[in-house]
């Protein structure tokens, strides 16, 4: 008797989601879209400036209400160039490689933002380098309104 071929059952997942933006994200994205400014939330107790914004400070457990503007310039805290062909959930396809990625501490913020670098050559990246946000022409009110961060000086 011949060995039977193993079967696979293909099932495609097709689920649509509507993610509510809520109070904090809505404000962040509206200001980003309409004014091209990057906002963060400051804890009234410990003074930590959170980016991304969120409902509460994890150390103090107090609600975050105080918005502060942070600069569109910042310092790279960590960097890499990615060569792996990743499936991009937003693009719906694979991202072109290599692409630069970094953790950027914008001036005025205490936490760093994970975002793209314009630069994709690691020999031209280092911790501490200064970068500036490059915004999309027609901002839509999502994190993609920041296209990437360009090396400055």
């Amino acid at each position, binding site marked *: 008797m011949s060995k039977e071929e193993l079967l696979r*059952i293909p*099932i495609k*997942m097709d*689920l*649509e*989601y*509507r*993610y*509510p*933006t*809520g*109070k*904090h*994200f809505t404000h962040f994205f509206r200001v980003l879209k309409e004014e091209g400014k990057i906002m963060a939330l400051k804890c009234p107790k410990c003074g930590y400036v959170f980016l991304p914004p*969120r*409902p*509460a*400070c*994890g*150390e103090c*457990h107090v*609600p975050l209400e105080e918005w502060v503007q942070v600069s569109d310039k910042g310092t790279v805290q960590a960097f890499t160039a990615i060569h792996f062909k990743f499936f991009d959930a937003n693009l719906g396809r694979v991202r072109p490689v290599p692409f630069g990625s970094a953790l950027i501490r914008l001036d005025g913020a205490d936490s760093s933002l994970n975002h793209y670098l314009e630069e994709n050559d690691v020999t031209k990246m280092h911790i501490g380098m200064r970068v500036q946000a490059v915004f999309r022409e027609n901002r839509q009110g999502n994190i993609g309104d920041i296209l990437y961060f360009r090396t400055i000086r």
Partner: protein
Amino acid sequence: MYPKVGIIGVSQTHFEVSKARQTISEMVFEIAQNALEDAGISWKDLDYTITSSVDLWDGSTASNATLTEVVGAVMKPEMRVAGDGLTAAFQGMLTILSGAAEVVLVISYSKESMSSRWGITNWVFDPIYQQTLGLDYLSAAALQTWAYFSRYGVTEEHCARVVIKNLTDAQGNPFAQRREKISIEDVLLSEVWASPIKALDVSPTSDGGSAVILASERVIRERKVEPVWILGAGRCLEGHYLGERDLTEGEALCRAARKAYNLAGIKNPFKEIEVAEISCTFSYQELLWSEILNFYPRGQATQLLEDWEAGLDGNLSINPSGGIMAGNPLIPAGLIRLVEAFLQVKGKAQGHQVQEVKRALAHGTDGPCGQGQCVMVVGS
């Protein structure tokens, strides 16, 4: 059951079809804060957090990753039970009994408005035999309903009366989502979704959640608080293939209830429990679960309708809050039942308080046709 774990505070959201103005983390923060306040404790006092949520409902992998701050888990332990909220409370109780913590926040939530409830439940079914048939909780429940009707002669009209009972009682529940006055005809004439289940037989999709704060005996004594004690608990899972189950027997619920009753020393639940908050996504389930929970002999739960309609549910009041029929998301529904049970024992069930509640039962379920079941008995 000894040693015991007590519930010292609770919270629940006002349930709505859509809380479009809140992200999950905002909603969860609100629930957690309110529970801590109700318990009279601060975030510092929390030792452990047990969350209950499901990635596919939240639309994100490891969806509890962005909740650490709002559940008090920064530099603290958190464990996620990816299923029924009442089971998460059971886990929380074990965390305390194992000595790993003394004060535990158990929090369960879901925002069903974000996606398609039935579409998601299709992914619970195994991909080999059942999923590709397009089964979901609704169509599976329809199978269970007919099996139940055929065996005992329960009718669609009985189910419609369940809906009226729950929505009427919900009018006394300030947190309830659905409180409109409808008639039996309204239910019977509502659109058939999966025969014999009609639109108004089904609990509406909902956004919201709830939390309980559990504490060890030692902490309760130290703080001199009056808790509601967990007297017994049981969880059980049945087989997965619908064709292999007797959908009217409810073996999992039977065993879960037996475990809970044994631990709590309950021999006659109908007489010894004053309130039962049970999770019924569909109207027929209130009757079926009531029988399996030994409140009524098999096939005779329709008695609860007679009693309610005559205002004679003095012995045992079932779902005085309006239950899930009034609108609760599926994942946290079981924990919300526990919250309601707590409120009843404490005498704090605003607008729907039952007289002199010494013992209450909370029930949660997950999986198709109640494949997974959890029962908890609480009391003063």
